[in-house]
Structure formats: structure tokens, C-alpha cells
């Protein structure tokens, strides 16, 4: 199968998935619709991390910090007896996440390799403790988003987030928008530099690129997009706890990106579906589902480099009788 046909098949697959997602509420129950919405939000989260990990080569183990900060921004900005205005609280949440990413980026991007992985984890843990130990976030119990944001602008209310169906389609819209946005960015001069940095940062520097600035921009952008996901998650569930910033959350989203196949936006979405799908499946079987999940992860690393999105390519190779590594 030549590359053009391959990419056409991939496009058809993506459109099919999108169609399925759009049509889902018609066939699925309210419970499953909410679950799919959750997966879609996590897919946005995963794509934001893929920008860092898969495209820029920055392995962040603390990405949940920005997700959680945006979620808390929503909860804290929502008054006790009234809903907040969407057009105020959404930019606020994303901005909060972006600012946090910018300042943390100033520190962590001074390091490389293993150090980078560890310090991103450590800074996220710091953010976790801020919400867990201080009165800021209502402590370990978390806080409620008392009302879903109100979308009224200039007297007109285009949609009502209290209607589950409308909220669902807003989430779908957000996913498509983030996907399209990242696709464009990655094709842009800026995006090509990021990919170049992942390939050979030293060479990029010797070609005249101020790589630190590009990495900081990528880190901030990724944080902002994680904030979009955090905002949606808080609105969806109406409840925010410090666990949104925990290293388990950071670990989970990293797993989604790696399992789905990095350097591939569709892979991040796929990874989110696969991860939550497996989680649901395994927890139906046993309360010790993490054992199975861990087993799958270990097996995936040992036997499936390249993740799920590389699977079709590898299957095709086998089908076509080719030998060699995937």
C-alpha cells in the first residue's frame, strides 16, 4: 500500500470515528454518552501532551498539573449561588494553566533527559500539595463546581451546558477544534522546528535556532491545551479534587500518548479510547483491574514498540509477507 493510499485510509478511519462519535448519543444511553464525553476530553488532554512528548521530544511526567489548575480555576471562579459566565471563566482557566506552564517551564526546561522527567514530576507534585494542603482548594476533599458555566453573551444564549446533549456536542466540537489547531500548528514553521528539536536539538542550535524559546513556547501551549481539557472535565463532572493533579493522572495521560503511538495526533485520541476502554473492561472483571492494566502496559512496551497506531502498519507488513521490525 503506497503512502498516499495509506493516508487516505487513515483519513477515512478518522472520519468514520468522528461520525460514530457524533452519532453516538442517538444510540447510546445517557450513562455511556457521558463516558464517551469523558474519553473525548481525555483525548484532548492526550493530544496536548503528544505535542510535547511525540513532537518536541519533551517527556513530561507532570502534565496533570495544568489540567488540574484549569479545573480548579473553574471551580474557584464559580460563585456560590450563580453560574459563572463561560466567556469569562473559560479563558481564565486556560490562561491560568498557560501561565503555570510558562513559569514551571522556565525552571524545568533548564534540564534535559532523565532530569527533565523527574523535575516535571516534582513540580506537578508541588502544585498537588498546594491544592491538597492549603485552604485554597478545599483540601483533599475537593470542591464543587456549583453551577455549570452560563454561555450567555450580549443577551443571547447559544447553548445550555446543563443539557447533557448540548454539552456532549460542545465537547466534540472542542476535540475537533483542538485536533485541527494542532494539525495546523505542527505543519507550520514553528511546528517544524519542534520536530527538528526532537530529531536533533544540537543541530538545530548550530543552525541558529534559539531552541529554549521554542521549547518554552511548546510547553506553554501544551499546558494551555491541557487547560482546555481540564476546564471541560470540571464542567462535565462538576467536581474537582487534588487528584486531578496527581502523578497517577500524569502517568495515565502519558500512557495514553505512548500506547496510542507518539508523534501522531490520531494516535493520542486512539490511546485515550484504548486506555479508558481497557480500564472499563478490566474493572468489570475484577476490582484489581490495575494488575491487568499494568500487565498490558508492560507487554506493550516489550512487544509493541510504536504503540497502537503503528499496529496497522505492522499488520500490513505481516500480511504482505515482509519481515523485519515494525
Amino acid at each position: 500500500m503506497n503512502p498516499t493510499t495509506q493516508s487516505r485510509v487513515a483519513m477515512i478511519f478518522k472520519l468514520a470515528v468522528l461520525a460514530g462519535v457524533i452519532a453516538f448519543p442517538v444510540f447510546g444511553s445517557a450513562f455511556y454518552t457521558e463516558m464517551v464525553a469523558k474519553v473525548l476530553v481525555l483525548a484532548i488532554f492526550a493530544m496536548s501532551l503528544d505535542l510535547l512528548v511525540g513532537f518536541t521530544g519533551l517527556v513530561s511526567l507532570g502534565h496533570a498539573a495544568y489540567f488540574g489548575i484549569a479545573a480548579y480555576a473553574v471551580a474557584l471562579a464559580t460563585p456560590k449561588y450563580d453560574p459563572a459566565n463561560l466567556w469569562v471563566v473559560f479563558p481564565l482557566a486556560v490562561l491560568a494553566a498557560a501561565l503555570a506552564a510558562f513559569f514551571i517551564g522556565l525552571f524545568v526546561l533548564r534540564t534535559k533527559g532523565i532530569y527533565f522527567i523527574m523535575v516535571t514530576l516534582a513540580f506537578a507534585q508541588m502544585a498537588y500539595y498546594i491544592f491538597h494542603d492549603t485552604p485554597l482548594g478545599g483540601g483533599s476533599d475537593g470542591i464543587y463546581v456549583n453551577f455549570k458555566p452560563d454561555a450567555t453573551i450580549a443577551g443571547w444564549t447559544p447553548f445550555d451546558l446543563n443539557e447533557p446533549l448540548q454539552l456532549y456536542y460542545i465537547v466534540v466540537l472542542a476535540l475537533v477544534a483542538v485536533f485541527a489547531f494542532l494539525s495546523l500548528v505542527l505543519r507550520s514553521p514553528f511546528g517544524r522546528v519542534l520536530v527538528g528539536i526532537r530529531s536533533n536539538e544540537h543541530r538545530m542550535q548550530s543552525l541558529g535556532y534559539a531552541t529554549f524559546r521554542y521549547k518554552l513556547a511548546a510547553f506553554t501551549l501544551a499546558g494551555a491545551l491541557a487547560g482546555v481539557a481540564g476546564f471541560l472535565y470540571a464542567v462535565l463532572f462538576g467536581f474537582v479534587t487534588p487528584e486531578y493533579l496527581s502523578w497517577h493522572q500524569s502517568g495515565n495521560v502519558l500512557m495514553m500518548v505512548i500506547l496510542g503511538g507518539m508523534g501522531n495526533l490520531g494516535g493520542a485520541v486512539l490511546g485515550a479510547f484504548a486506555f479508558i476502554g481497557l480500564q472499563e473492561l478490566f474493572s468489570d472483571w475484577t476490582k484489581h483491574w490495575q494488575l491487568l492494566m499494568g500487565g498490558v502496559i508492560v507487554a506493550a512496551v516489550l512487544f509493541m514498540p510504536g504503540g497502537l497506531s503503528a499496529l496497522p502498519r505492522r499488520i500490513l507488513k505481516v500480511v504482505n509477507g515482509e519481515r523485519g521490525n515494525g
Partner: protein
Amino acid sequence: MDFTTFLIQILNALQYGLLLFLVASGLTLVFGIMGIINLAHGSFYMIGAYLAFALTSMTGNLMLSIALGIPLAFAFGALLEWLLFAHLYKRDHLEQVLLTYGLILIFEELRSITMGDDVHGVDIPAMFSASIPLSDTLSYPVYRILISVVCLALAGGLWWLMQRTRLGMMIRAGSHDRDMVQSLGIDINLLYRTVFALGVALAALAGMLAAPISSVYPGMGGSVLIISFVIVVIGGIGSVWGALLAALLIGFADTFGKVLVPDLAGLVVYLVMAAVLLWRPEGIFRKG
């Protein structure tokens, strides 16, 4: 704060820091020598603590349990290296992170299945259960002093191992050039297995020693893991000496942080790390 309380905090900080050193030293050795990032390292600490609990329930004697536990932990580490970690040397950091994260999940659930999710206590052995009086009202537990002494002795032992033995020389050589070391006739696979097993044993021992004072509970692996990472970042990857200094720094920062600013105690450690990062992004004692 009066002098006696101050002294107690100093002793606590020392004991905590030295215990952290045991855990972090294994981590930094594995990082520095084999280039592997191991998120499951905290799990070894937890396994040590639960092992102490289980064995002490059977034998009734913590010291005996520790004596049994150390070789068990060592063997477990060797087995784990042979089964899984040996495949990671050629993989990139990302895959190592992924695989060891999966291991954390597996270890946590296995622990949940075999030992349950309750918090357990372990009794301090009778001969160490006394306290040394420091003033009219305050005294300090002998057991905590014992921990500090044991950790210091191990630190000394590690130093002697690294600087004065053939094994230590091979370890230091192996960190610089794998192929070269192999061509000298040293079995690099055996060397790596030994280093890894040593790291596991150190972390497990720390867990065993800590069991009576910090209790045995789910999630104890996670908190120690991240602090260990901070210590290795501050001390520099591969530097045992750096790990010791950083561990003591963290021990003091955390202990006095809890006393002086209890609401922000959890943050102090990370603020210290941030400060060090500003000054020296590759750790205080970055090894070449």
C-alpha cells in the same frame, strides 16, 4: 523552640535524611550506571515494609525479619532484572518510564491482593524499644538512633564498596563504557544484575527499617519515590556522595518545614529543588 526540642528535630531530620539516602542511593546507582529510569523504585521500599510486616507477624522478631528480608529482596531484584530490566538497556527513556509505571500498578495490586489495603503497624523489637531521656519531659527513641546508625554504616559500606573493592571499580568502570568493560573480560550482564539487585535491596531495607515508625500502608511507595527523584536531581545522577548530601538537605528541609510552616510542609522540599535548579540544573555533583 527550646534546645531539647531543637535537638529532637535535628535527630529526626538526620534519621529521615539517612533513610531517604538508602532509597535514593539505589536509584542513583541504577540511573548512573545503567542509564535506566525506574519509576517502580518506590515500590521496592513498600515491598520491604510489607515484607517486614509479614515476616515479623510470623517470626515475632523484626531483626530476624530484616535478616531474612535482605537476601530475599536481593534475589527478587536479580530476578526482576533478568526478566524485565535487562530488556530496557537499549530502549529510550520513554519506554522505560512506561514499563516501570506498569510495574508500579502491578506491584500495588499484588500487594493489595496478598496483604490487603489496611494500614499496619510493626512493633519495635523489645531491645530497642527504650528511649533516651534528653530532658525532664522529653526523650528520644533508641530505635530511631539505631536507624541512623545503620544507615550511616551502610553509607560507609557503600563508599568502601565503590572505592576500595574490585566490584566497585567494575561498577564505576561499567558506567562509562559498556563495551570496553566487556572486552576486559568482565561479565557486564552479571555486573548490571548485581547493581540492580543491590539497589532493590537498599530500598527494601529502608522500608523494613522504617516500618515501625512510619507504619505500613498503601501508597507509601509513591511518596518516597518522588522525594527520591528530588534527591537524585539535587545530588546529581550517579553520585552516591551527592545523594547523601541531598538526602540530608531534604531531611532537614522537610523536618524543620513541618515544624516551622506546617501548612506548607509538603512544598518545602520542592522549593529547595527549584532553588537548586536555578543554580545548578544538573545537580550539585553531576557525574560526567
